């Protein structure tokens, strides 16, 4: 006879329990480290993701007593902390986006692809998008990618970044307008660089 499966406690309950039993906090890691890792890897590359994710959870653990227990889902809170960590590497992020835009080769893809040939010749649309992403204001890029890559809702992005929902909307609109301009208003071939054998 097996015990009935325990109902999964919501994140707030886990965090509250971790006030008394700190080890409980590892449950939060098990729930969300993988998607956050993938999100960070998409932004900063595979190599940076391990440290950024580890630091994110260390920071979250340290400030767990400040968590708003009325929020049952900790994802926005954790993505917000991760976003701040990512912000420390903004230059690296912009550089890699610029490299993708300029060369069609994505430094971020390098880590997992292993095969260098997979990384070359990104579609011109990707290059245009990368150039546009690199050119966004950091706050606009954060909102766009939390929604497009982390699948946060407007409300969740607002919680993550501690900004009003209206600001999320206006940042997203601005970012998307720039994406559309990049896709429509520019000749992608102007970004091309060709390699030739000697």
């Amino acid at each position, binding site marked *: 006879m097996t015990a009935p499966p325990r109902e999964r406690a919501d994140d707030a309950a886990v965090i509250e329990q971790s006030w008394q039993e700190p080890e409980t906090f590892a449950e939060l890691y098990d729930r969300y480290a993988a998607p956050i890792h993938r999100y960070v890897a998409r932004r900063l590359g595979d190599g940076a993701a391990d440290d950024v994710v580890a*630091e994110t959870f260390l920071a979250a653990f340290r400030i767990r007593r*400040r968590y708003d227990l009325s929020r049952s889902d900790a994802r926005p809170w954790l993505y917000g902390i991760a976003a701040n960590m990512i912000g420390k590497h903004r*230059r690296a992020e912009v550089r890699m986006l610029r490299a993708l835009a300029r060369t069609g080769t994505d430094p971020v*893809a390098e880590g997992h692809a292993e095969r260098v040939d997979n990384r070359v010749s990104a579609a011109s649309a990707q290059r245009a998008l990368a150039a546009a992403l690199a050119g966004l204001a950091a706050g606009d890029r954060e909102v766009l990618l939390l929604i497009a890559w982390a699948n946060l809702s407007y409300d969740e992005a607002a919680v993550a970044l501690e900004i009003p929902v209206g600001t999320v909307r206006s940042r997203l609109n601005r970012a998307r307008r720039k994406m559309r301009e990049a896709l429509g208003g520019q000749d992608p071939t102007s970004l091309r660089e060709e390699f030739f054998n000697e």
Partner: protein
Amino acid sequence: MNDLDLVRELRADVPSPSWARLAPGRARLLASISQPSRPRKLRRAVQPVGAADSAAVAVGETGRSLSGRRAPRRGSAVRLTARRTVWVPVVAAAATVVVGVGALMLAPGGFQHAASGPAGPRQAPGGAASHPAGPVAPVYRPATLTAAVVLDKAAAAAARQDNTTGKYFFTETEWVGTISSATGHHPGVYRTGPSLRQNWFGNGVGGRLVLAVGAPWPFGRIIRNATSSSVGMTWAQLRSLPTAPAPLLAIVAKNAVPFPKSPNSTASGEFEFIQELLLENPIPPAVQAALYRVAAGLPGIKAVDTTDLVGRPAVEVYVEPGPNAPAVGQALYFSPVTFQLLGEAVLSDAANLNCPVAGSSAILATGYVSSDTQLPAGTPTKLEPAHYSNSAPGCPTTLLVGTPPWMRGKTGQAGLRRFDRQREHR
């Protein structure tokens, strides 16, 4: 498919990490949880908390004194951090076209063990870069002139140059860089080069880039578009930059990507953009002079006497990182006699110049020419012995030497042909 869908597709092939991959992070978390000495009690508050607060707790564990020694760690939260955050520069294979200004990213913990090897640069009496005993590490001496004076003299020297241009602006540099897989499979940062790089930047026409003599994959000829690969500006835009420091600083500040946290970090970003403008771009003499004057006004700007990548006596000008600022930085090298620009470097640790450079370029020849095959008179075709280090005591990273595992079979002419064949099949 709308724009948001296209953004969703971008890098969508980045996989979810395996549990094995996440295990060290979990162990770090548990280690910090079970640590007997808890940080000071955090205030109990119900309101949602600023992510900014949390980041402030977690980042900036390593205080760094301006003298290059690590400052005592501050704050109880520091103890929770299992290891120091290490910045290493990564010039990904594709980024070899922007040598020395490659992407920067945080190294995975796997790089740490490389640093625990025998410290100290290996010395080679001959100094030949390809010498199996390794390169000669540069020596740093206190500057005889301040950075402001050096930059002022550089501005005067630049302003005296002839303003005649040609169809192409040619630059030949000898450079070293780094390449990293940025992956857990083959952790490590490898030294690339020294090699020669010849760049023809065309006036309104495409240019040409030749990576030759010892260049890592991919090498060969690269047909370039008509914008600068470092700053993305056209010839006309570069030629029409303002010559007055204030509007020029505004452009520099707009284009620079500052680090957060420290005023010097903003300056580092601005200095980096100035450096990118000055290398391989047809900048008019008056604008060069103005760029040096702008640089002279940046906070934290410092000078030190040393040698450049090819061993020429040089004054190295760089921005010292402020407290809590990332250690990476940029440097420009000037002749101590003529105050001409000799080259540049990307520093892996601007607080400890003995740490290996992430990338460095020495300008061997430059000038305006009329075709994209023409070389200015006297352009060398051979490498000079290079002066750099791959490791030093107290530095977080030891650079590995040799061909990285993921590059094996992809270097050299055969690798280039294979690359071309694969490319045709896509």
